[in-house]
């Protein structure tokens, strides 16, 4: 859970930073997307590095989801009878209790839509694969505002997921003392904010016509 989660966070950081090419214009963004596919050429075949990264990414996602399912099943078995009265959570990661599991489902559904939208272009008006820029502009165009709203909702869920996930992974792998645990929680919050805001600025800018 922790190791796959950290690797997925690294992917998100890279993906978020890559998306910011949108602000440089059509050519630069498409060149970046093309660059991802020709990485390692001519030494290696077309898209080989990309596919190695994709396989690693899929492996991390599978391990991450599988661990979550195991943990959730154990949790259900560990408390077969529920409490009649419940008090709001009051631990250090109280938001995690209410948001990790349903938030994960929102993010999962988002990724399916997102792949159909911007990778396979099934639900995207722009089918021309080399034109990543065009596809981003088209999907977040003002008249398709529900898409932007859905992206922002998914990012909201992702924010809570990362806010807890990042420090929780460090707690599992490194086991910091109290001082470093507090620092890790602050860093987790900061990284989650950077990632989510960095992603959110793209659909917001396109929908409001700042990029077109």
């Amino acid at each position, binding site marked *: 859970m922790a190791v796959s989660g950290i690797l997925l966070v690294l992917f998100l950081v890279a993906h978020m930073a890559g998306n910011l090419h949108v602000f440089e214009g059509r050519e630069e963004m498409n060149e970046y997307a093309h660059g991802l596919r020709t990485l390692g050429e001519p030494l290696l075949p077309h898209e080989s590095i990309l596919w190695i990264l994709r396989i690693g990414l899929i492996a991390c996602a599978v391990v991450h989801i599988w661990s979550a399912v195991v943990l959730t099943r154990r949790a259900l078995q560990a408390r077969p009878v*529920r409490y*009649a009265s419940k008090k709001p959570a009051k631990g250090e990661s109280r938001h995690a209790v209410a948001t990790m599991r349903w938030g994960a489902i929102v993010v999962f559904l988002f990724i399916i839509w997102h792949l159909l939208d911007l990778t396979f272009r099934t639900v995207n008006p722009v089918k021309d694969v080399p034109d990543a820029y065009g596809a981003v502009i088209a999907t977040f165009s003002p008249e398709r505002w529900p898409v932007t709203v859905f992206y922002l909702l998914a990012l909201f869920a992702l924010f809570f997921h990362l806010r807890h996930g990042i420090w929780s992974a460090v707690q599992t792998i490194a086991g910091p003392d109290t001082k470093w645990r507090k620092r890790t929680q602050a860093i987790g919050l900061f990284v989650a904010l950077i990632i989510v805001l960095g992603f959110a600025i793209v659909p917001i800018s396109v929908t409001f016509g700042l990029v077109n």
Partner: protein
Amino acid sequence: MKLSLRIWRQPDAQAPGEMVSYEIDEVSEDASFLEMLDVLNERLISEGDDPVAFDHDCREGICGACSLVIDGQPHGPQAATTTCQLHMRKFKDGDSIDIEPYRAGAFPVIKDLVVDRSAFDRIIQAGGYISAPTGTAPDAHAVPIPKQDADAAFSAAACIGCGACVAACPNGSGMLFMGAKVTHLSLMPQGQPERATRVLGMVAAHDDAGFGGCTNTGECAAACPKEIGLDVIGKLNRDFRKAAVRAA
């Protein structure tokens, strides 16, 4: 003060249970929570009813026998306080209070509010001890221990094994209890020879008993009457990782 109680009544481990309502009058603000239940039980006995079974022993917050989930909170609303040390002045006249047993598959209900916490004993038997020659007690300062380590070990050793951490955990995990024991012993020179086998054995016994896995929500530490912190879970994770890598 006058209170409306809803208490979990279950005749034995097999029978189904339910929340039963009781009205109770003239509760003294100075009574402890358990004394309030004693008063209720005297009335139930005089009326020929079965008294409410609940665990208790020292009634001074040091043994870990008392339990109860009061209004959804293990050991009730007051931080860093066992149920036996909780006083009725924390409640208001006319309050309704829900009283339930700890809910965990690894802590089955025996009767009413009494649960079987022997799963914790099995975790201790799997490594939560040191092997030492018997005989006369060694000199207090025969083994020098740095003050910081002694203090940290002492804080962890404050765990009374009450199980509130499990009751509070949304995953029903026993990591805080286990972390407290591992931290206490692995900070001491006497704990070193068995350090690796201890953590591996205890974690295996914990998982066998049917406790859930930790997801670091921190609900355990918020409920712990002895204020054991999440740093002990960090230490447990570190010790486990080292021992597991070495064993592999």
